[in-house]
């Protein structure tokens, strides 16, 4: 860590991880309802659990991206952050608004558009906070060095804020409501958020592999180009059955199939740089999360997305547990793991100690990834059975759900494993740093944490 103001990232990472833990709690509760339907059915109905689960995800991922930006931008721009005070105020507004929304949900105060359930005043506060964040970081970059990493990162964040404006537009016509709703949801997660992802991965690879910046930044532009060339028109795969013209079917088929390519390019990119790199970076856990993020997002977003993206397949699978399987592994692989990669990389530097608790951190990686993969497999099998019974044979929804109990039990089990991984990760990152020194150094009174 070269600049004192990079420390601003610490409270962002801490809040993001606390909300991540809370998100997992709501997820476990909702998974429990699938197994024991009477669970909390009076106190907290399923819809409240689910909106809490999904909203916490979006809020913590964004706070994590903010933290990552505050951490890496000063180093890229080679200057201190424009205003740390503004950053803290911005975090307080964002986290406060998110908390107000979450508490309101428990009392039935919410909107009814998927993922955008926040009351209008919360949306306005989130927007103000987001704009403060953008202003602060744009000023930082403007006064310092402009690298491709920081330009692409800021571009992704600015575009995320711009497309968020569609959250305020809600047509009365349900078909049009959904048409523009995807301008936020799809364009975020299969478009501009991938710019954020690719630039943060590029930063991590530059730092950890020692490969020449020129090469990594060229890859970065190729990847984000592939993202938007495929991803914008790839929105077509959500426009098959919404009262849309038929031309979205060929467009969606062709372009959304190509959405796999940038994810595959990110895997190639990460591993190519890793093998090419001459540097043996001591933070092995951060390298594991970085490579893991590229791989799991390729499978979760790329492969599992491709599986049901073609219109003649999607006709049968649309809105089944197949979608749930894809959604879980895609968000986890691309964005949750990205946050854990940058946090694992940055925390030793923020705490000014050598990389610590690496074994525990790597255990948390394998436990979390293992749990998420198993969850994805069980939901995929559930989805295949559901698709066949309900969409091919035409059986009743509740009858079919009754046949899926075993999968839902295994999903709850795998969710518990994920929760264990999260706890280990939190302890590894925020807990006391164990000294990792040879015995003879310890014996002579050496202090590992002062290096």
């Amino acid at each position: 860590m070269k600049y004192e103001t990079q420390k601003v990232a610490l409270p962002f990472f801490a809040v993001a991880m606390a909300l991540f833990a809370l998100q997992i709690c709501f997820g476990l509760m909702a998974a429990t309802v699938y197994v024991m339907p009477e669970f909390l059915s009076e106190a907290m109905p399923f819809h409240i659990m689910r909106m809490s689960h999904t909203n916490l995800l979006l809020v913590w991922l964004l706070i994590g991206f903010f933290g990552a930006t505050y951490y890496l931008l000063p180093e890229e721009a080679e200057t201190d952050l424009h205003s740390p005070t503004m950053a803290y105020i911005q975090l307080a507004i964002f986290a406060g608004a998110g908390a107000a929304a979450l508490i309101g949900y428990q009392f039935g105060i919410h909107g009814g558009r998927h993922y955008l359930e926040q009351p209008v005043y919360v949306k306005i506060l989130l927007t103000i906070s987001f704009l403060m964040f953008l202003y602060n970081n744009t000023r930082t970059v403007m006064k310092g060095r402009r690298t491709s990493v920081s330009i692409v990162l800021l571009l992704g964040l600015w575009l995320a804020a711009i497309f968020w404006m569609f959250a305020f537009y809600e047509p009365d016509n349900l078909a049009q409501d959904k048409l523009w709703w995807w301008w936020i949801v799809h364009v975020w997660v299969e478009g501009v958020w991938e710019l954020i992802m690719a630039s943060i991965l590029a930063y991590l690879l530059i730092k950890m592999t020692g490969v020449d910046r020129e090469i990594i930044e060229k890859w970065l532009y190729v990847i984000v180009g592939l993202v938007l060339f495929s991803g914008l028109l790839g929105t077509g795969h959500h426009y098959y059955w919404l009262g849309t013209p038929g031309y979205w079917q060929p467009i969606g088929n062709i372009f959304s199939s190509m959405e796999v390519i940038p994810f595959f390019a990110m895997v190639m990119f990460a591993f190519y740089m890793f093998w090419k790199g001459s540097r043996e970076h001591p933070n092995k856990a951060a390298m594991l999360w970085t490579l893991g993020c590229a791989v799991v997002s390729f499978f979760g977003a790329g492969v599992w997305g491709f599986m049901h993206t073609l219109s003649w397949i999607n006709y049968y699978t649309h809105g089944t547990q197949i979608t749930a399987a894809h959604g879980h592994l895609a968000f986890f692989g691309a964005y949750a793991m990205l946050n854990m990669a940058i946090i694992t990389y940055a925390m030793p530097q923020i705490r000014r100690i050598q990389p610590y608790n690496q074994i525990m951190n790597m255990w948390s990686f394998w436990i979390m990834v293992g749990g998420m993969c198993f969850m994805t497999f069980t939901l995929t099998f559930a989805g295949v059975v559901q698709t066949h019974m309900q969409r091919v044979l035409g059986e009743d929804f509740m009858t079919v759900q009754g046949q899926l109990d075993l999968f839902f039990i295994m999903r709850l089990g795998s969710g518990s494993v994920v929760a264990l991984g999260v706890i280990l990760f939190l302890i590894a990152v925020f807990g006391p740093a164990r000294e990792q020194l040879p015995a003879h150094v310890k014996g002579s009174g050496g202090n590992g944490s002062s290096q």
Partner: protein
Amino acid sequence: MSEGLTRNAARNIFYGGSTIFFLIFAGLTIHTHIYMSTTSTNSEELDEAVIAGKEVWEEHSCINCHTIMGEGAYFGPELSNVWHRYGGRENPEAARAGIKGWMKAQPIEAPGRRQMPQFNLNEQELDHLVDFFKWVDGIDTHDWPPHKSG
């Protein structure tokens, strides 16, 4: 990666290409918006009652258990064709009574069955909600879902 491609060339391709694809995407979306108004949905039947029904739908966040046109949570059944499932296309009065009766009967405390909360909607809200379902059933979705069961 071809050695011939420089970073600046890659950057220019990114900006130029993205702009073109965005413009195509925006143009098609606007066309689709107009198509929905004129062709695929019944704009003239989108009256106050249907809009009020959409508000009931949103106020209680039905989408966080159910799907509508395949989007939402996968905990409860698909509702874009619930009007059709209750026979509304043939016998609208019976379908209306059936859907309202179902809403009023919640929660059905059958052991081991997923519970739907009682939302205590009044007659007018129930009617608006049914009007909304009836209107949604008229959207041309290219014959999705494949079966009446949703």
